[in-house]
């Protein structure tokens, strides 16, 4: 029983991680809070849903397409909106992304009605692994594995490619990076795009078992904020572990203290951890 709860918590946690990885990237590199992050997740889920409904494409097959769509959407968001507010004081970027979130969400309602939709059949639907008394749903397992793979892909990209190193440089000091001849403008746009691709993948993985509706991203983005701060802003490993920690504490706390408190417990864990690590688990 306990093992079951821990496993479920970890699986959920990895998906949180991936959503948070996208957020922490732009937060760390550009110091921008993207309120529309969860809405990109929703757009990705709808992309998968429509490919499935109209072209009978399996969600896993359309995953790259969804990632591409959110990459482009994020890229454009940077070019059209964020670019103009990145030098503005404090919370202006927050204002802009909040407006964007409101716009995307209601545009989705306008285009696709507010109905709850589900992808009813896919490669993974209704499959499960049974090991004694422990049951693991394949959709959740695939989502967790996919999240881990995507996270490592992002880490690899940042550590081992030229663009990735430029991103690191820009994160540490924008001006120095510029002096070194890095086109920060381009780097920022790419970072935003990668962040979008992360939620794109997460959305496609979630779409096999989570309802799809204009507000589906809202809760994920709220949790992602906490995870990012818990792990330390801009720290990808922090986001990964933070996500798992949050998933676990949600499952265990919910089981022992009452499921209505499961998100309250998540927030409490954040406050407690930051008493000992004021800059997050992996912050410096």
């Amino acid at each position, binding site marked *: 029983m306990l093992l079951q709860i821990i496993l479920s918590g970890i699986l959920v946690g990895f998906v949180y991680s991936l959503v948070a990885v996208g957020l922490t990237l732009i937060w760390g590199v550009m110091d921008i809070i993207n309120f529309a992050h969860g809405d990109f997740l929703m757009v990705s889920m709808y992309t998968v849903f429509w490919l499935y409904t109209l072209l009978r494409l399996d969600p896993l097959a359309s995953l790259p397409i969804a990632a591409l769509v959110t990459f482009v959407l994020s890229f454009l968001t940077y070019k059209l909106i964020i670019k103009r507010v990145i030098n503005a004081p404090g*919370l*202006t970027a927050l204002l*802009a992304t909040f*407006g964007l979130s*409101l716009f995307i969400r209601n545009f989705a309602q*306008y285009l696709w009605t507010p109905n709850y939709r589900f992808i009813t059949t896919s490669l993974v639907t209704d499959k499960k692994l049974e090991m004694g008394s422990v049951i693991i749903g394949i959709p959740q397992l695939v989502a967790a594995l996919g999240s881990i793979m995507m996270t490592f892909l992002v880490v690899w990209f940042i550590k081992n490619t030229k663009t990735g190193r430029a991103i690191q440089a820009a994160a540490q000091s924008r001006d120095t990076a510029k002096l070194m001849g890095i086109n920060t403008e381009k780097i920022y746009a790419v970072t935003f795009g990668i962040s979008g691709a992360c939620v794109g993948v997460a959305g496609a993985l979630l779409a096999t078992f989570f309802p799809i509706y204009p507000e589906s991203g809202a809760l994920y983005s709220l949790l992602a904020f906490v995870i990012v701060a818990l792990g330390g802003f801009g720290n990808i490993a922090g986001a990964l572990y933070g996500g798992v920690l949050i998933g676990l504490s949600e499952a265990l706390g919910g089981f022992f203290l009452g499921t209505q408190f499961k*998100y309250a417990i998540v927030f409490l864990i954040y406050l407690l951890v930051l008493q000992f690590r004021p800059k997050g688990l992996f912050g410096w």
Partner: protein
Amino acid sequence: MNVKNFRIDTLYGILIVILLLPFMNSNINFRHVMVIFLIFAGLGEAWNIITGFAGQTSFGHAAFFGIGAYTSTILFYKFGISPWIGMLAGAVLATVISVIVSYPCFRLKGHYFAIATLAVAEIIKQLFISWDYVEGATGISIPIVEESVTSMQFHSSKIPYFLIAYVLFLITTMTARYIENNKMGFYLKAIRESHEAAEALGIDTTRYKLYAMMVSAALTATFGTLYAQYILYIDPFMVFTLEVSMKIVLLSVLGGLGNIYGPIIGAAILIPLSEYTRVYLGGTGKGIDLMIFGALIIFVACFEPNGILGLLKKKRSRRRGDVYARADA
């Protein structure tokens, strides 16, 4: 040009205009918009003290708002105590809670602090949802009694609500102005610009941040009481929600941060805009009103990143031809 004079007559001009407006138009919806406008402009002013002046971003002011609303409601609902006393009690309680939660949070810097305030507000919300004594998630319908000043219930007209909101707004704005122009205001701004430098100058940063938070929380709570009395129904989802916190943040940023005119201008644009787009387009059921609303927010943020106030200042300095005014934008 005497900067101080400019401020005084502008502010008084604005205050008089606001006071006269609802008497010029008896439309019930317009008066409703005026009441909500004053409540949110006042909330913005209160929030501005801790975030605009002291630079400590709070995403959790809904917590104080909700505590103000619930304290007076519970006192009236369970014990028949006048909401005016409840308003004071709520302000005191909010102050106490602000001390308890801020003290540990002030160790955190920047976004870590912001997310912490959000976390605190969400936890308090969940506690109220699960707390049977305050009727939990089912909410409380405030018992309707005869309208009177003592019961803070007025059924035949919105003017008394407007006047109460106006007085609270006035108190808040004047408090903010007083702080801004006194020692404390300069300390807070020093903390905002550089925490380390402020400490090096010998400012007890934690103490002044705490003062700012206490004043801000107490003022926020009074608006909570008024809001509860105005709607005559409260539940945790409506007063403790992140939406209220964000609305306060957004309208202050929209108007211009760290300035007492910011929240007034921000609320004067945001509140009527959201009300009237909904009134004219909300009935379609397609979300068009919120789409337009969102698009306008993006537009303002992109083309006037310093808030509406930044636009005004820029214009003024351009015409005066000096660079001095631009520097303080």
